């Protein structure tokens, strides 16, 4: 799908409080510029992100879902990020069956010191989502409308 004119993707971002959330904070305090498309949600660990939240975000009209976790070996709870990684692998297999492009889900390792990297990754994700276009009704099995209403009538 070609880029939609004036389309601003909405991204739900689950950020681990120990690393990615702090990284996002650092990007802010360092006055780094990145697109305002993300809605950050602070979670105690990326391993706390229930796959149901991811699907729910898409069902309610998110164009992208971002999960930020600690670098391998750095998880505050030892292995939460590894579990998340495997969940994301499975979710990316499931999403196309639901009519959702797997690229709309993105997992990144971002540490508390990587404000620069956070800004960069978000910028990149927004650009990619703009190319994908909005997650909307049509061939979409879930038929989600822009205002989050699920469309039954056609």
């Amino acid at each position: 799908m070609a880029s939609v004119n004036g389309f601003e993707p909405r991204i739900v971002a689950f950020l681990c409080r120990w690393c990615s959330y702090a990284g996002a904070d650092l990007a802010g305090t360092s006055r780094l510029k990145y697109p305002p498309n993300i809605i950050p949600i602070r979670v105690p660990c990326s391993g706390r992100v229930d796959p149901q939240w991811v699907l729910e975000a898409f069902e309610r009209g998110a164009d992208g879902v971002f999960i930020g976790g600690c670098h391998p070996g750095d998880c505050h709870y030892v292995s939460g990020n590894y579990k998340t990684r495997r969940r994301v692998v499975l979710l990316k297999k499931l999403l196309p069956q639901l009519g959702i492009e797997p690229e709309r889900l993105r997992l990144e390792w971002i540490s508390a010191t990587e404000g620069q990297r956070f800004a960069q990754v978000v910028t990149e994700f927004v650009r990619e989502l703009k190319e994908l276009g909005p997650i909307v009704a049509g061939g979409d099995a879930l038929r989600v409308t822009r205002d989050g209403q699920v469309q039954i009538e056609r």
Partner: protein
Amino acid sequence: MSSPTSLTETRHSSPVPRRDAKPKLAVYWTGSCGGCDVSFLEVGEAIVEVLSRVEIVFWPALVDAKRSDLEALPPGSIDVALINGVIRTEENAEMAKLLRAKSKYIVAYGACAHLGGVPSLADRWGKEEIFREVFGKGFRPGPPPGANGEAALPDLLDAAVPLEDVVRVDYVVPGCPPPAPLISRFFGALLGGEMPEPPHVFANVKALCEECQRVRHDDRRIERIVRPHEVLPDPETCLLEQGLICMGPVTRGGCNALCPAAGMPCTGCLGPTPEAGDPGTAMLSALASLVRFEDEGEEYFPKEDGVLEALADPLGTFYMYSFGRFRRKR
């Protein structure tokens, strides 16, 4: 209802007015394979007793009856109506509403009425797409050329939905089809005048694993995922540990772990436990936790991916009976 002190009454309101009175029963199929209607025979000889203690007022699979017969009944005159099958057509929805009006209690019987069942996997696509795929371009279920509107087939609804999407459901007898122990549980309650307070699901709250006889080990992990036709599983060990995707951890017990006992992984026909909620995401999480090697870390990522890659059909595996209920929002 008679006075609560009566010996034939239980603490809950019962659809059976008196223990010796025969409850009026209706059984109806909507978008169904017919298996649910046959499933009653699962209880064996007990079916003879059950049939002698109910009055069948409407059951198209067994007794000749027309919709007009049903329409002629006074409202609330049926004690219990068991409806099996998914709600797929306009007619399915009309009949469900008609039965609701004529019955004191509605029972969603079987996985399709309960959660959408296998037919609701079609909800991956819209109605139009299904028509295009099956009948080619331009097909509509209109009347045959020259005939009037009466002769038209009932139209498909936009989605195949569980019964609770069109009428209030009081009880659920789950399963694909419901297994004997749960059919007995239901009729035992009905004929014993001990129906629980609705809404109630006639299956366990606890997971299937609790009643499964297979041995589970501590610190279990999965180093491979296999499909039932690819292995002859060890007869003692938990199937999930052997790499077969068994929905036991997220599925209600009540069938005595019928499938794992026979060497087949549970596909989740009794529906998820209240704790699991969405069976698909719950099982996905469980699987993601189990798939790992002796240690974890970056060097294991490719190996883990290789294992997960072998899961052939996540949607069909995780939502075999529940797609209409869980992934298709109302």
